[in-house]
């Protein structure tokens, strides 16, 4: 099946001449969750705005289910919902009215049952008659999501949905996203939190300075670049690594209380058995053994730095 969203050679230069997107190619599969990571000013919001019709592309094309977002904007935009990064809402409007308004704007006939479902899903039903200004920041963000879902989009853009949201609400948000995915909605979200991408995305894209540096299955990405560390904690600190243990994979923690062994999980042999038997042969006494997986964060920081270098 062709991708639900097909972005080809997308460029965007702002009026001041600044090129915020330098030729982005990206195919988004039906039903997936794609997380876009990138530092401030990378072009994440610009990419979303250009797809959704808030800014015009300078070059390149985007199609949603085969509909060009410029030439055939009615069909394309009907499929897309957008939750913007900024909380843009009319302060004096009632929650339910603004959600109904969004549905009407997209040309869909009124459907109280659907509106109720969306508001309940987002725990906003008991706030439906409140004025927006009387809501907390987290609730306002959920109102934005409700507005985006009011017209039953097949593709949903979430621009930093969890910025400034507390841990509990962030978990709620992840559940909402998972629920939408279960309903078959394709989701593209941007985030600065790597653990967020790690927790909910199927694929991860990294964008910096207007260029997409990589897009990959999360698991493949982590396996490809992920390395594990084994920390062997000792009862007696060492001054140096014993001769018999010397290896470029092994290092000593700064205070000498632990040996740190780096290995690749996908290698034929990890070398752990050998290491541990050598440690025993040296007569070292173990206090504890800990393993650590390098996170996406390490990968991400590595990539963005490589790019800057």
């Amino acid at each position, binding site marked *: 099946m062709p991708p639900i969203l097909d972005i080809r050679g997308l460029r965007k230069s702002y009026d001041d001449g600044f090129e915020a997107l330098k030729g982005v190619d990206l195919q988004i599969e039906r039903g997936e969750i794609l997380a876009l990571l990138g530092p401030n000013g990378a072009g994440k919001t610009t990419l979303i705005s250009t797809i*959704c019709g808030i800014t*015009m592309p300078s070059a390149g094309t985007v199609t949603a289910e085969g509909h060009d977002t410029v030439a055939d904007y009615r069909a394309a935009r009907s499929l*897309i919902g957008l939750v913007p990064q900024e909380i843009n809402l009319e302060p004096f409007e009632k929650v339910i009215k603004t959600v109904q308004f969004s549905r*009407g704007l*997209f040309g869909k006939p009124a459907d109280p049952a659907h509106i109720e479902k969306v508001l309940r899903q987002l725990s906003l039903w008991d706030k439906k008659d409140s004025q927006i200004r009387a809501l907390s920041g987290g609730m306002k963000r959920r109102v934005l999501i409700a507005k985006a879902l009011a017209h039953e989009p097949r593709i949903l853009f979430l621009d930093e949905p969890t910025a400034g949201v507390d841990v509990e609400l962030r978990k709620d948000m992840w559940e909402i996203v998972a629920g939408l995915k279960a309903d078959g909605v394709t989701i593209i979200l941007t985030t600065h939190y790597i653990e967020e991408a790690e927790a909910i995305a199927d694929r991860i894209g990294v964008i910096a300075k207007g260029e997409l540096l990589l897009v990959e299955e999360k698991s493949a990405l982590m396996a490809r670049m992920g390395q594990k560390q084994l920390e062997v904690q000792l009862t007696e600190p060492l001054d140096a690594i014993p001769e018999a243990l010397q290896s470029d994979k092994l290092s000593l923690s700064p205070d000498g209380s632990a040996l740190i062994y780096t290995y690749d999980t996908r290698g034929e042999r990890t070398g752990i058995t050998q290491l541990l038997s050598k440690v025993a042969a040296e007569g070292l006494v173990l206090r504890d053994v800990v393993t650590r997986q390098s996170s996406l964060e390490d990968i991400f920081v590595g990539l963005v730095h490589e790019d800057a270098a």
Partner: protein
Amino acid sequence: MNWTAVKSIYIFEMTRFFRTIAQSIISPVLSTSLYFVVFGAAIGSRIDEVEGVSYGAFIVPGLIMLSVITQSISNASFGIYFPKFIGTIFELLSAPINFLEIVLGYVGAAATKALFIGTIILITAFFFVDISIAHPVAMVAFLILTCISFALMGFIIGIWAGNFEQLQLVPLLIVTPLVFLGGSFYSISMLPPVWQVISMFNPVVYLISGFRWAFFDTADVPILTSLLAIGAFTAICLGLIWWIFKTGWRIRE
């Protein structure tokens, strides 16, 4: 055409209006009453009839025009400026709607509000002076056309404005003087000849003259000229709006 969207925008805007209905009505009624007291009763008692109409009645069409024009402009300019200001415009831009639908929704609502207020002022006027309307159909048509054309102009101002000062600037510096010098309170024929000529360059003169004709069957300029003038003005506004949407000027980068 996405009529559902047009209707949604229209209803949304009208709800805003009805939320503050009391102040929407009180202020024009109050200011009109003051005009009647000051110009109609105090000064008017010292002025003879103008073109065969008592002065109090003579100023009614001008007063209605004054309010309708300012209301159309401020409603429409604020209506589209506000979403730009608070950022909710993103929703209009990402919705499957075109410029025509946006204009119909916003301009339609702004014109309706102005029409509503114009009607209220007319009703208020009946309490102060005796008026009869010579050409009722033409009167209503003029009123509606004025509401629409100035709401179009207000829409352009709202798109153009980059801040609240600019939003007030055009109405204050251009529209108010044009309306006051457009014969709201006098007949153009009462002016010295030089000013009569200058007045012919003021588009509002044609409007007020035509509107007054609908009331009293007397006019400063031929009624057809009035119709042409308002038609031309509407066409210019429509052309400008078409260009704005075509280029995305001040809306879509």
